[in-house]
C-alpha cells in the first residue's frame, strides 16, 4: 500500500484510494465501512470503505476476507494483496486521520468528539464514492456509538441507499471485512514507518501496539515525554493516558478556556478588563480609570521591572 501521500504531511488528514472499477459505475453496488486504530494513544485513525457490485458478493466471499482483528498482520497484508488483485470489481478508499488532527479536534474550544469525527470521516468517504459514480445501493457499517441513531443519520444523508448499521459488521459482511482490512493495513503501515516531524534524533520505534494498556506503549510514553512540549505529534494528546502523564510529569500549561468553555473564559477576561477600566483592583488613592486606549490594548503602567 502506497502511503506516500499521507507521509508527505502526516500532521493532517489524507484520503487514499484505489481506481474505481468500471463495473461499479454501471452495476448496483454494496459498500462496507470500517475503521482501524480507534483506541490507541499513538498514530492515526484510519477509516476505510470497500465497494463492489452486489452481483459480485460471492466472488468477494471467495477471497476469504474475514474480520481483520482475527487475522495476523501477514494474513492481512496477503488479503489486501488479493483485494488489490481483484481491482476489476473491488474498489477502496481510505481517510487517514492524523493523530494531530485527532488531538486538535478533540481539544478544540468547541469540542469535536471522536464519534462526530468518525461519522464525518465515514460520510465523506461514502460521498467520495458517490461523486466517483459508484452506483451505491447497500451500505454496511460497523457501529460507532448507538447503532439506531447512526443508521438514521446515514439513511437521511444518503437517500435511496439501504443502510445497515450493525455491531460486529466486520465479521458478518465480507464487504465490511474488506474495508476493515484496507483500514488496518494502512494504519499498520503508517505507524510502522512513522516519520517524526520532530527532530528527536534516533527514535526508539518499539512503541508496541499503541494501546494504552500495552506496557511497551506505556514505557515509550514515559521515555519520550518532554517537560515543555509533551509529546511529538505522533501521540494523541486528547487521550486520557497522555493527559494523565502530562499532568503528573510535564510543566503545567494553562489556556484561557481551561475548565470552562472558551466563551466563559472570554467573558471572564472581558469582565476583568472592564472592572479594571473602572479603576477596580487599583489602590484607593488611584481611583482614576485608565483610558480605554490602554485598557483595550492591555497596556498597563509598571512600577517595577
Amino acid at each position, binding site marked *: 500500500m502506497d502511503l506516500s501521500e499521507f507521509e508527505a504531511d502526516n500532521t493532517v488528514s489524507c484520503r487514499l484510494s484505489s481506481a474505481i472499477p468500471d463495473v461499479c459505475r454501471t452495476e448496483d453496488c454494496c459498500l462496507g465501512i470500517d475503521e482501524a486504530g480507534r483506541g490507541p494513544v499513538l498514530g492515526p485513525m484510519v477509516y476505510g470503505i470497500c465497494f463492489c457490485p452486489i452481483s459480485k458478493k460471492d466472488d468477494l466471499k471467495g477471497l476469504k476476507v474475514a474480520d481483520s482483528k482475527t487475522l495476523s498482520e501477514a494474513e492481512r497484508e496477503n488479503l489486501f494483496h488479493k483485494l488489490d488483485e481483484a481491482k476489476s470489481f473491488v474498489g477502496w478508499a481510505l481517510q487517514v486521520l492524523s493523530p*494531530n488532527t485527532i488531538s486538535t479536534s478533540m481539544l*478544540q474550544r468547541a469540542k469535536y468528539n471522536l464519534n462526530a469525527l468518525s461519522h464525518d470521516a465515514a460520510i465523506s468517504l461514502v460521498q467520495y464514492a458517490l461523486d466517483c459514480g459508484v452506483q451505491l445501493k447497500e451500505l454496511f457499517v460497523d457501529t460507532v456509538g448507538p447503532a439506531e441513531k447512526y443508521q438514521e443519520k446515514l439513511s437521511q444523508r444518503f437517500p435511496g441507499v439501504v443502510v445497515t448499521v450493525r455491531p460486529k459488521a466486520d465479521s458478518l459482511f465480507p464487504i465490511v471485512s474488506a474495508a476493515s482490512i484496507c483500514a488496518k493495513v494502512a494504519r499498520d503501515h503508517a505507524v510502522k514507518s512513522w516519520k517524526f516531524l520532530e527532530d528527536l534524533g534516533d527514535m526508539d520505534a518499539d512503541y508496541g501496539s499503541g494501546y494504552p494498556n500495552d506496557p511497551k506503549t506505556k514505557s515509550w510514553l514515559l521515555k519520550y515525554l518532554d*517537560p515543555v*512540549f509533551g509529546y511529538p505529534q505522533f501521540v494523541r494528546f486528547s487521550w486520557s493516558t497522555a493527559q494523565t502523564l502530562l499532568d503528573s510529569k510535564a510543566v503545567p500549561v494553562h489556556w484561557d478556556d481551561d475548565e470552562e468553555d472558551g466563551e466563559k473564559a472570554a467573558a471572564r477576561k472581558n469582565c476583568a478588563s472592564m472592572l479594571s477600566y473602572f479603576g477596580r483592583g487599583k489602590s484607593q488613592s488611584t481611583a482614576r480609570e485608565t483610558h480605554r486606549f490602554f485598557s483595550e490594548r492591555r497596556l498597563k503602567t509598571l512600577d517595577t521591572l
Partner: protein
Amino acid sequence: MKRQEVTYRTPETAVEGERSVQRMSSNGSVTTIQLGSVDQADRPQVHLLPCEIEQDGPAEVSCYFTCAVKDRKHEMSVSFRGRGLKGQEVSCPHGYTGLVLKEDHKPTTDQEDRTVRVSSIFSRFTYWNLETPPNSDDVVVMAMAWPELAKAIHGSVDD
C-alpha cells in the same frame, strides 16, 4: 545615586517617617541596562504563545515547535500540547528594536541597585492565537500602535 535621608523626625511622625524612608529607598533603587552586552546578544526566533507555560529556562523549541510550523498562503499553523494554533509574524514598530533583558543576579532586597543585560535582540516575532486566524483586531497588533501615539502625546510642540 545619592539617597536623601530624612533628617528631622518628631516623635509623633516617627512611624510615618519610617514608612517614608522605606518607600523612599526602594523608589531610589535604579536598574541599569548594561549596553556592553549588546554585542554578545543573540538574534533568536521569538514566539508569543496563547497559553501560560509554568516554566522559565531551556526548552527544545526547534525540535518540537519550529520544525512543525507550517507557513502556507500567509497562514501559519502549528500545534502545541495537542491544541491548534494559528500565527502571524509582526515586526517591531518603525524605529524600534526588540530586546530581551536578563537579570543574572537577583538582588536580595528591593533597595539595592540592579543590573540587567541585553541577552537577545529581535526585530520581529510570531504571535499565535488559539485556533483563531490572526487579524488586525488582535490585541497584540493593536498595541503596536502605541509608540506612534506616544510620539504625538510626548513629542515637542511648536511655539
